[in-house]
């Protein structure tokens, strides 16, 4: 499941907001602006009811159906707001995001961690008026497990689910049994968005059902309208079981072009603007005189960029070569110039300041001499004097595969090319569109590439990316294979204790650091902006809880 993940996360924002609340006496408005923190005062005061919150999104989601599609925008728009789960991440408890009750009022976990019992909330109604019960939970799982529905992204989480049913005679108790203990099993089930059984029954493969584009949930907002290519809107659910939303409507407007979007922001068309470009966030907002009229938001979700070397290629089979290439890149200078210093460096697979990360593993410094030395040691020298290193008659010449849409890679790739050329390594660049890119990556038809992994929960399992069994079908696209890492990952999967599991992950991190299969680059922040009148906004790994937001009428 998408949001399955570990405990890793949001220490960073926590650190930031702590400072915001308590640090040096009076809140420093300039520091808040600089760092992209929302002033604490914005969450205080008496909420006002009414108004329309207009949000800019840059891409329309393919549908509003989390069962068949996993676009980030779907998660953002629907979860917690429209479609609810039995439990949800507590967005206020920033670093750890423990679960809090939602559609379930409570739960029990058996000591062997194989049986989960959920007690569901009574009196909840779906947006169409039908009553909610445990049958909906069971039906949702069944739909996901149906091989005729394209829900593999969710289905994989329930591979070890033995059965799930309501308790005999009690539709408000759901019991799930698992075959194997797995540390993410409970979280995956508890945070699964629940769909109405009576509509799922008629939905077939989902793709042609009304709820594919017009979702029906139990949340504080109810779907209103989707005008393709233009806007998607939701209205307040007046029959919500919990605290009702403050704003009357939420409208997501699709504005793809960043320049156009920024013009509209200047004209005051948006209350919440998602995905500013770095330079817009850093410079243009202030230059356009918007400081004071909007607040900048910079928030780190669990994600990181990397450059990966396909270890099926002879060049990259040797760890010394991979280390050398790492030394050849001035990652810090790249961060400061190409990325405007907004991203944060990382060397860890997990969320930045998570305790699954080992802070003593600093990024490798820029050291061309060391890089050359390592390449020499690995046997890659310029034997024939043509300016390009070679070994056994094979010149060190490879192709870097990049996605044509990426602005960052359009700068990084030529930089890499130039730096490696100085080192006697010839790199060519192949630029392809996203559809082809994913295919080539999936089939391992590349020498080197760069991508970003991300997750929407702080808890996550590295199995899919780093376990050697995942070379064929999983996301281990660079064919990394190390028995030590395999063993640690397997151990961790069955380890339910967070501290012990994180210790294993730190060990794994050290192996990865030495083997250098990736050049770990940066964690990228979300760069958003909220209009002054927006109150109660709080960024978290679960995005924003718009039901808590109100519009000040000052």
């Amino acid at each position, binding site marked *: 499941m*998408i949001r*399955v*993940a570990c405990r890793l996360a949001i220490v960073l924002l926590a650190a930031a907001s702590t400072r915001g609340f308590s640090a040096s006496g009076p809140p420093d408005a300039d520091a808040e602006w600089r760092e992209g923190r929302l002033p604490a005062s914005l969450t205080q005061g008496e909420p006002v009811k009414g108004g*329309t919150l*207009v949000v800019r999104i840059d891409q329309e*989601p*393919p*549908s509003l159906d989390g069962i*068949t*599609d*996993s*676009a*980030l*925008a779907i998660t953002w728009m629907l979860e917690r707001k429209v479609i609810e789960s039995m439990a949800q991440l507590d967005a206020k408890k920033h670093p750890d995001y423990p679960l809090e009750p939602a559609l379930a009022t409570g739960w029990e976990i058996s000591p062997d961690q194989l049986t989960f019992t959920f007690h569901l909330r009574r009196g909840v109604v779906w947006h169409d008026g039908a009553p909610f019960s445990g049958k909906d939970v069971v039906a949702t799982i069944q739909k996901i497990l149906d091989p*005729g529905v*394209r829900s*593999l*992204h969710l289905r*994989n989480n329930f591979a070890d689910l033995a059965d799930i049913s309501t308790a005999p005679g009690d539709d408000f108790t759901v019991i799930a049994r698992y075959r194997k203990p797995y540390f993410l099993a409970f979280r995956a089930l508890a945070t699964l968005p629940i769909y109405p059984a009576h509509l799922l029954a008629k939905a077939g*493969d*989902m*793709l*042609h059902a009304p709820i*594919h*584009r017009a979702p029906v949930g139990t949340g504080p907002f109810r779907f209103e309208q989707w005008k*393709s*290519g*233009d806007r998607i809107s939701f209205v307040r659910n007046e029959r919500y079981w919990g605290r009702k939303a403050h704003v009357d409507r939420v*409208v997501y*407007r699709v*504005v*793809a*072009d960043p*320049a*156009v979007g920024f*013009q*509209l922001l200047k004209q005051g*068309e948006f209350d919440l603007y998602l995905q500013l470009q770095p330079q817009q966030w850093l410079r243009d907002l202030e230059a356009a005189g918007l400081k004071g009229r909007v607040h900048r938001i910079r928030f780190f979700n669990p994600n990181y960029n990397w450059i990966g070397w396909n270890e099926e290629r002879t060049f990259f089979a040797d760890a010394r070569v991979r280390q050398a290439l790492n030394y050849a890149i001035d990652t810090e200078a790249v961060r400061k110039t190409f990325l405007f210093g907004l991203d944060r460096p990382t060397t860890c697979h997990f969320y930045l300041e998570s305790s699954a990360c080992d802070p003593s593993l600093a990024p490798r410094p820029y050291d061309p001499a060391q890089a050359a030395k390592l390449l020499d040691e690995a046997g890659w020298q310029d034997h024939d004097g043509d300016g390009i290193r070679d070994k056994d008659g094979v010149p060190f010449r490879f192709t870097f595969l990049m996605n044509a849409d990426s602005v960052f890679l359009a700068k990084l790739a030529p930089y890499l090319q130039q730096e490696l050329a100085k080192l006697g390594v010839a790199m060519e660049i192949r630029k392809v*569109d*996203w*559809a*082809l*890119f*994913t*295919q080539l*990556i*999936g*089939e391992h038809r590349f020498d080197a590439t760069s991508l970003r*992994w*991300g997750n929407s929960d702080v808890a*996550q*399992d590295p199995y*899919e*990316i780093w376990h050697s069994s*995942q070379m*064929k*079908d*999983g*996301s281990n*696209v660079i064919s990394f294979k190390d028995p030590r890492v395999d063993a640690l990952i397997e151990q961790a999967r069955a380890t339910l204790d967070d501290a012990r599991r994180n210790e294993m992950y730190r060990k794994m991190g050290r192996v990865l650091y030495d083997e250098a299969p990736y050049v770990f680059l940066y964690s990228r922040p979300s760069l958003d902006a909220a209009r002054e009148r927006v109150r109660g906004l709080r960024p978290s790994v679960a995005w924003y809880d718009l039901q808590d937001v109100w519009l000040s009428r000052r």
Partner: protein
Amino acid sequence: MKRFLARRVLAMLATALGVTLVAFAVARAAPGDPVALQGDLGLRAGSASVQQMREYRRLMGLDEPILAGYLRWLWHLFRGDLGTSFRDGRPVLSLLGEALPVTLLLSIPSLLVGYVLALPVGIASAARPGGWLDRALSTLVFLLHSLPLQWVALVLVVWPSGLPIQGLHSEGTSSFGDLLAHLVLPLACLSYGSVAVISRFLRSSMLEEMRQDYVRTARAKGLSESAVILRHALPNSLLSLITLFGLTFPALASGAVIVERIFGLPGMGKLTFEAVLGRDVPVVMGAVALSGAATALGTLISDLLYAAADPRISLEERRGWR
């Protein structure tokens, strides 16, 4: 006449089959995975991506041989069913139904604006070929014709004109004036090129006409120059615009990607573009079929109009090609 029509229609059908077959083959054989369309899930940490792609291919019927797939598509088309989008499962017909009006809203007015502006320009140039007005207008037309569209569009967006730059209407309003305001900049982008082409076309065909004997006769009769131009040369040269209309007809339906994307208009261009990028075969095929039909129809209409308007043209001579 009947024979001509029958042959024309047959030829059109042959072309349409060719276009759709090639398009289908290319769309299916083009490397790249439609799965990439499911948002960002193509490569997601924490899910079996390759396995997933395989499953999706199966569910989308992409493991079927190309020819079989094409025949199935044809059969469905024959029954009026264009299939459903890989992306969101919606019927292709309703996607086209949403996008086509937006595109027509842009293309018909832009064509009208183009013809309306081009007429005086073309006439003025042809009235005194080589005169200062002709030279000035020709230069202007050349400059317009050479302006890169994406450049013009973005300059218009950044230029503080006060006009709306996004979508078809503002938040909460749906008045006609508001719609009109939203159309100004996109229409400007779409029209300047056609003004250039149409006015040059008109100018050249008017000059052609003015060398004809009947114009000389008219002049000899002592008609004023303006009467000669407006009453004799112009009506005849308007004929040639009919041909041009046939050529522009398909463009009416195919949309303008740059303009639609920059101004956030969900028309045919954007639909086709995104479908191609996402390897959304049913939508690509729907768009190809639509533009193929428009092309064929445009050619047919202009042939017929031309034949009806100018008895000198025999239909048999013009068959086959154009």
